């Protein structure tokens, strides 16, 4: 019965955690997953402490407490979700509306309550059952709870998935009631079920699914005649296609365009990142405005050379496909990561978009662009990476911590190698103020060419700007004078400017779009000069080229920037500059809260416990930190190999949990062997070290395998460390169980406290130092844990047991 209880509670717990991330990114921002994970861990840490403090009461009223907790858990999931959805939270206005700090705190508090109750159920269950079994049920449940939202997310809105999770959270109380069959319990459950039914009903109502009014989709829905033409779900996002009067997108459109932008449909991903679907009836005259975008440049250049084979990364609503077809390119390879976009474009929007996705010249590949480039053996005359994120998101910094393997040094190398001898790679990006990401892109291209030993990289690069966008071209062979003359003509006709081209002089900069100081030209030439390292290091923003070890394209934060925040106030500094700083800011209250709520009450009055078990604090601290320092980089690393963050997260989390669960079942038998724990930690260290230095090489060999084989490889790779990572926690607990009883909850608290802190620290370390460092730190943590583990006590217990057996 208890195992069932733990299983369903853990499933609902993790399901709630993952679904809340989705709900939050649908309604507000999509970059707060670390806060949600932190809340989950904080909730469980606090629950451990409360249980430790109220231990005697709980032992006396064991089943009553358990039942009360199983009632509180669904009440908190349902109530917390409904109430938090009703709060007028608006992170955009936080800089001037102080009340938002209050709303956001309440929001996260309400969101944290279910984690508290859920973890309390598991913790109380541990008191009556051997840790290995209960821990296994916990991990299996979590594994199932992690996989469920991913499976459902193809068919349901995140709010619907939340309703399912709420229903699952209700199951533990049913299990208890079926076991005890008490009338009073039935009455409690009846009342609760009314609340649950109401919340499920509410979460299924469309008007309850509010999206922040500052998201682009809300703006579109305010336009006359606005309607959602189609809506579909994927684990990556809720995808909505909107049609409205006056809805247009012309990013990088020239003021001089004699052609009009028609009213378009817009595809929104979680209400953001609009991708236009241009109406096309086969008459190219109606879409000629495309030739007045800065991103038309590579097509303009290649058109005269005689167009050939083109690769388009992220075709979205099909604008680049139209460009390629209009310019006469054939065949067109289009790589779209989101399978739902392909379905939308082939079905509901097929006719509207002139069946561009169904065109015979277009071959669609449902994959991540980078993985495709690594796997492909074709050569292309043009590789086009059009603008993928929205200007609002790019400028307001909501992407700050999202890793992107598309814009790394190795990625540019992968694409470059797929070019024909006269081929061109084209990247279009927004220009933010002050310019940062275009400098970073340029620096990435330069570094990539240098690392490939391309002589004179400056001759292979050319950049053109419109008012708000920049298109960067990287050519396989040096640009010719004829190319440059044509680019100049292209710019003059469109009021664009050349930002950089081979042989350019400073007085040619900012000709059509006037600015002070030819800032961009000077920066670009500095990046190409021998003193580029000095320039990058002295720059206020982090414009260093990201690589696969540190793929944080959107992080521009440098500690030196703090002085501006201090000098001019937070509201005066664009959010983009903050990068990982919010994580550091979150870390401070989290450390304080978790210390006062988790560790302090336990330390108080339990000095004896700590003194008696000197190993306890470092041991549980290190294994908690070690687990997250391995989990986080593994998820991030596998994104590139599996070609999708969703697969990576789903596969890694579920595999880690399930195999750790299996490992925990073996913890007792491993402990029985001499120095079992040290050996176990050594295995984890060796495997992690091996992964740290060989994963990249291994992946480059295996990347050509089909997806399901790659998933199997990832499961295998995860299973090995996961099995051993599941052992230390129950092993430590079972040791305590035999000794001091009250120290059990202390261990739980220590583990919780350090889990909370390490998830944030691991993220910060990954951004600042890269994944390798994070993994090496994990090795150090596990090794230290293995060393401090008191084998002496194990030996003592073993001897005692054998004596008992003999007598």
């Amino acid at each position: 019965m208890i195992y069932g209880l733990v299983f369903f509670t853990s499933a609902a717990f993790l399901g709630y955690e993952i679904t809340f991330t989705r709900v939050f990114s649908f309604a507000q921002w999509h970059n707060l997953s670390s806060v949600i994970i932190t809340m989950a861990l904080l909730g469980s840490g606090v629950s451990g402490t409360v249980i430790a403090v109220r231990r005697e009461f709980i032992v006396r009223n064991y089943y009553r407490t358990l039942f009360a907790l199983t009632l509180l858990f669904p009440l908190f999931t349902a109530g917390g979700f409904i109430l938090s959805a009703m709060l007028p939270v608006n992170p955009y206005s936080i800089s001037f509306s102080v009340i938002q700090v209050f709303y956001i705190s309440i929001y996260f508090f309400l969101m944290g309550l279910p984690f508290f109750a859920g973890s309390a159920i598991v913790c109380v269950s541990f008191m009556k059952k051997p840790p290995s079994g209960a821990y296994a049920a916990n991990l299996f449940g979590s594994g199932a709870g992690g996989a469920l939202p991913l499976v459902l997310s193809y068919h349901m809105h995140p709010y619907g998935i939340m309703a399912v999770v709420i229903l699952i959270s209700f199951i533990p109380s049913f299990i208890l009631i079926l076991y005890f069959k008490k009338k009073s319990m039935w009455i409690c459950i009846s009342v609760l079920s009314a609340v649950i039914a109401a919340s499920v009903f509410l979460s299924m109502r469309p008007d309850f699914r509010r999206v922040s009014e500052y998201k682009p989709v809300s703006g579109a829905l305010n336009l006359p005649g606005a309607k959602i033409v189609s809506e579909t779900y994927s684990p990556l996002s809720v995808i909505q296609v909107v049609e409205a009067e006056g809805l247009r997108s012309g990013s990088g459109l020239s003021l001089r365009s004699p052609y009009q932008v028609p009213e378009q449909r817009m595809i929104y991903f979680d209400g953001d990142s609009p991708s236009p679907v241009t109406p096309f009836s086969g008459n190219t005259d109606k879409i000629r405005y495309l030739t007045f975008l800065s991103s038309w440049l590579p097509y303009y250049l290649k058109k005269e050379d005689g167009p050939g084979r083109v690769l388009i990364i992220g075709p979205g609503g099909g604008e680049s496909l139209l460009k390629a077809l209009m310019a006469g390119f054939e065949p067109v390879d289009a790589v779209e990561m989101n399978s739902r976009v392909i379905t939308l474009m082939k079905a509901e929007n097929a006719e509207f978009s002139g069946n561009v996705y169904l065109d015979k010249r277009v071959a669609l590949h449902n994959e991540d662009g980078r993985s495709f480039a690594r796997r492909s053996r074709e050569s292309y005359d043009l590789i086009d990476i059009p603008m993928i994120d929205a200007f609002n998101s790019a400028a307001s910094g909501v992407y700050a911590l999202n890793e992107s393997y598309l814009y790394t040094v190795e990625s540019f190398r992968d694409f470059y190698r797929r070019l024909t001898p006269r081929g061109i790679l084209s990247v279009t990006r927004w220009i933010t103020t002050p310019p940062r990401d275009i400098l970073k892109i340029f620096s990435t291209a330069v570094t990539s060419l240098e690392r490939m030993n391309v002589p004179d990289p400056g001759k292979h690069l050319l950049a053109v700007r419109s008012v708000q966008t920049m298109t960067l071209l990287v050519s396989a062979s040096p640009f010719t004078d004829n190319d440059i003359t044509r680019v100049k003509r292209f710019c003059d006709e469109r009021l664009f400017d050349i930002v950089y081209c081979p042989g350019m002089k400073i007085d040619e900069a900012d000709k059509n779009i006037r600015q002070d100081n030819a800032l961009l030209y000077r920066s670009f030439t500095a990046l190409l000069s021998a003193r580029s390292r000095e320039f990058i290091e002295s720059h206020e923003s982090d414009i260093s080229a990201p690589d696969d070890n540190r793929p944080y394209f959107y992080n521009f934060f440098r500690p030196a920037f703090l002085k501006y925040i201090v000098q001019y106030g937070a509201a005066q500094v664009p959010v983009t500059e903050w990068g990982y700083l919010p994580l550091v800011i979150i870390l401070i209250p989290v450390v304080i809260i978790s210390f006062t709520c988790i560790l302090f009450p336990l330390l108080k009055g339990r000095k004896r416990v700590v003194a008696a078990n000197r190993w306890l604090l470092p041991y549980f601290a290190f294994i908690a930190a070690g687990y997250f320092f391995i989990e986080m980089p593994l998820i991030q690393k596998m994104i590139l190999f599996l070609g999708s963050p969703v697969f990576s997260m789903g596969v890694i989390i579920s595999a880690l949990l399930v195999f750790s669960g299996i490992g925990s079942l073996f913890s007792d038998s491993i402990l029985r062997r001499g120095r079992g724990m040290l050996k176990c930690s050594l295995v984890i260290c060796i495997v992690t070290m091996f992964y740290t230095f060989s994963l990249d090489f291994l992946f480059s060999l295996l990347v050509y395998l089909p997806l399901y084989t790659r998933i199997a490889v990832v499961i295998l790779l995860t299973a090995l460390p996961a099995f051993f990572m599941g052992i230390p926690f129950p092993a430590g607990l079972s040791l305590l169980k035999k000794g001091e009883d009250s120290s059990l909850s202390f261990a739980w608290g220590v583990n919780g406290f350090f889990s909370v802190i390490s998830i944030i620290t691991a993220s910060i370390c990954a951004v600042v130092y890269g994944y390798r460092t994070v993994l090496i730190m994990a090795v150090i943590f596990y090794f230290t844990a293995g060393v401090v583990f008191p084998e002496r006590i194990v030996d003592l217990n073993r001897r005692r047991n054998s004596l008992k057996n003999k007598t």
Partner: protein
Amino acid sequence: MYRILPVMLFLVSAALLFVPGCGKPQPQSEEKKVMEREAWKETVTGRTGGGETADKYASQRFEMVSIQLELRGIRDSRVLEAMRVVPRHLFVPYEYRDDSYGDTPLPIGYGQTISQPYIVALMTELLGLNRNSKVLEVGTGSGYQAAVLSYVAGEVYSIEIVKGLYERAGSDLKKAGYAGVKTLHGDGYYGWEEHAPYDAIIVTCASEFIPPPLLSQLKNGGRMCIPVGPPFKVQHLLLVSKSLKGEVSVEMITEVRFVPLVRAWE
């Protein structure tokens, strides 16, 4: 019975997940929009009138002009006068009224904002207007920018595509005594052909590109100004000028909000 009830409710809730159409999203209903608008109107008209509270805010307005505008380099006396006269608080939602003269943008509903006073003043100054100028504003929003423009220029035409904003701004402009501003509910992309050409055009709606038809409605020698940036964070202004011969040039007036920041950076 008490045993069946929770099981039934559980099953009913589970069944709800599969009711077809239950989860289909809909845009905000027209009826709800009207209700919201009415509620807003009540808060504005019911509790305060322009005249009664004018004095209360006058000192704040003068302080705003001297601290936020003059110290930052706004020189045009007509613009400064307009900023001293136009009651900004009448264009701000009731709950933010006391913050009207702060150095910050404020939300006005529909995901739109009323710009920071400094940006309103700077854009107006950049347009180089006089009493005879004819101005087109694309994106009426709160109506405040139009009111300031109408104080400085001769004729002001303003287009708004969001119906709720169009109606509210129209009535607020009237109430605040700026009935001379001509407003239109429509798509600003095509400008307002009927009254073209204009001496100046100001695009205040969030736009990721400048609609080319606007350029043809700008007189030779005219100017067009566009703020660029996400909500609450205008980052730079674009100034498009048409010479007397009709040649077009674009200038970036950068780092609007972060003037001190970037000076230090340079």
